[in-house]
């Protein structure tokens, strides 16, 4: 006869109501972890999609995501001529806000050379960019459809292809255009400003042939680290391996979000512990007479401790699984990507068990202190 289950059945309404509240808290904890995982996947998605082994950036920087990086447009040719390089491509990145269909859209515009490293990876619908100007490949998250036109800066682009789940570290959907279009969007100044610059510095012409990075793929057998060291000898250039670029993104871009989410998750777990602890404590206080009677008729402490711990565990387990079910039901409605991974759920499951044991300590302490003689008092 399981006394814990019998008592839960006796106070079913209160118990289930507590479980629902707790499951919502655990649902938020899972959402927090999912948001963090989503941040990583989104932030690293673009780096991984580039399929580069080495990123060449402006000297002394760790660009182009963590810091600004500007390179002359002909850097790619210089890099491509190096020993060990199989392929190289220039890229330019820029966040753009565009008014479209009466809405403000934030996009991460990626400029890449046609048929070179950095252009759009897997296209789920449509075709790659084939014309040198005014064509774009957009992520589905931008809400654009094939054939739709969107104005970015002074130019209008036609969507010819679509990607899926490709966003920048800020969560903005990615839009691929040609490098030339991206350079014009990022570096070309307005005509009036160009005229003013020309007047201030006679003879000077503003060049928009600037890029943010050169992506490099190496020949088989070439060590990316050695290549990075070789590039570092060029004082105006820096290079990072793919792994270093991921680390930079993880540490520099996501670190603060990770700490923020980690802190929030910890607070939620503390709140959950306090709630479980208080509920188990009040449930134990409600059972004081019953516990005293059990002790008096000869129940061992282990049986009474078991009653309390089992109730705490039941509360935690029910809440965890309800919370897990709930987050799986609603995760598609979150504005940013939520990545729910089984290992995270398993870790939270372990944490919940630990929290339940911790929370039941107060109830156990009260129960062990109950004097069996108090059963005899009126």
């Amino acid at each position, binding site marked *: *006869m399981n*006394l814990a289950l*019998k008592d839960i059945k006796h106070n079913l309404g209160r118990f289930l109501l507590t479980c629902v509240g707790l499951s919502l808290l655990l649902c938020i904890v899972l959402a927090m972890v999912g948001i963090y995982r989503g941040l990583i996947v989104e932030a690293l998605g673009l780096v991984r999609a580039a399929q580069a082994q080495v990123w060449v950036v402006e000297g002394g920087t760790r660009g182009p995501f963590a810091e600004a990086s500007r390179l002359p447009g002909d850097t790619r040719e210089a890099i491509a001529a190096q020993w060990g390089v199989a392929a190289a491509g220039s890229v330019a990145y820029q966040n753009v806000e565009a008014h479209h269909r009466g809405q403000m859209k934030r996009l991460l515009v990626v400029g890449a050379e046609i048929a070179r490293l950095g252009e759009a990876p897997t296209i789920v619908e449509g075709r790659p960019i084939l014309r040198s100007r005014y064509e774009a490949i957009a992520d589905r998250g931008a809400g654009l459809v094939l054939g739709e036109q969107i104005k970015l800066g002074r130019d209008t682009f036609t969507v010819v292809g679509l990607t899926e789940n490709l966003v920048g570290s800020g969560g903005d959907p990615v839009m691929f255009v040609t490098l030339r279009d991206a350079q014009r969007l990022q570096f070309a100044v307005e005509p009036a400003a160009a005229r003013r610059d020309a007047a201030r510095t006679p003879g000077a012409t503003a060049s928009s042939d600037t890029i943010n990075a050169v992506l490099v793929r190496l020949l088989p057998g070439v060590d990316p680290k050695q290549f990075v060291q070789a590039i570092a000898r060029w004082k105006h250039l820096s290079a990072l391996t793919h792994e270093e670029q991921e680390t930079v993104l993880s540490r520099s871009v996501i670190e603060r979000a990770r700490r923020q989410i980690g802190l929030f998750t910890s607070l939620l777990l503390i709140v959950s512990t306090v709630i479980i602890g208080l509920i188990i404590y009040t449930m134990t206080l409600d059972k004081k007479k*019953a516990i005293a009677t*059990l002790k008096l008729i*000869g*129940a061992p402490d282990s049986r009474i401790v078991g009653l309390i711990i089992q109730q705490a565990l039941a509360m935690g387990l029910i809440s965890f699984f309800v919370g897990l079910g709930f987050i799986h039901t609603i995760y598609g409605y979150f504005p940013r990507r939520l990545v729910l991974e089984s290992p995270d759920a398993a870790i939270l499951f372990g944490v919940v068990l630990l929290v339940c044991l911790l929370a039941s300590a107060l109830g156990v302490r009260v129960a062990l202190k109950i004097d069996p003689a108090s*059963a005899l008092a*009126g």
Partner: protein
Amino acid sequence: MQASPVVEIRNISKHFGEGPTRIDALRDVTLDVYPGTVVGLRGPSGSGKTTLLNVIGCILEPNSGKLTLNGEKVYDGRWLRHDLRRLRLEKIGFIFQSHNLLPFLNAWENVAIAHILAGASTAKAKSRAAELLTYLQVERRMDAMPSQLSGGEAQRVAIARALANDPRIILADEPTAALDSQRAGIVIEMLRKVAVEHQAAVIVVTHDQKIFDRFDHIFSLRDGALEGEYSKAA
């Protein structure tokens, strides 16, 4: 020849506090209770009745004296057994003024729990509970929760629980306090039946004058000391 006493108390003393705040709850109490008898412990409030019941029930450690339960020396200046809860479980049944049925168990479960705690399987304990509830004529309420039982039914279920492990000693604390004289008489007769048929010693703490004449023996306490004892036969 008279049987050996089930409860033997020799010079039991118990005090609370020290110095000017010391209260002598029991002073050199000596008494015997024999199997098959229903014994009353009476006295005014603070006379030491409940303290004595707690000592016999191995809930409260006396300061001196000797206590023997069912032939086993339990206390002789110190507890002689470490597993006092096991001792209570096997040898002592408790009946409370307010029944103290566990609110989350139904009638048969309340009876069965004592048997389960002693090591019986749930099936065996249920069978034992059914047997006892039938014996106490409350078998029709086996599945009722305590909140659904009348006072008399709850008291019978409580008595059934006290009998679950066939104890030789039954301690009852004011079991008739909330009952009228007719129902109080029924409860005492029920305890007498239990005492006789199970050869148990039933010790009842009571203030209830209307049932004094129903006890085989009455021990009267005042200020922690045994003031007098009265037998039905005397």
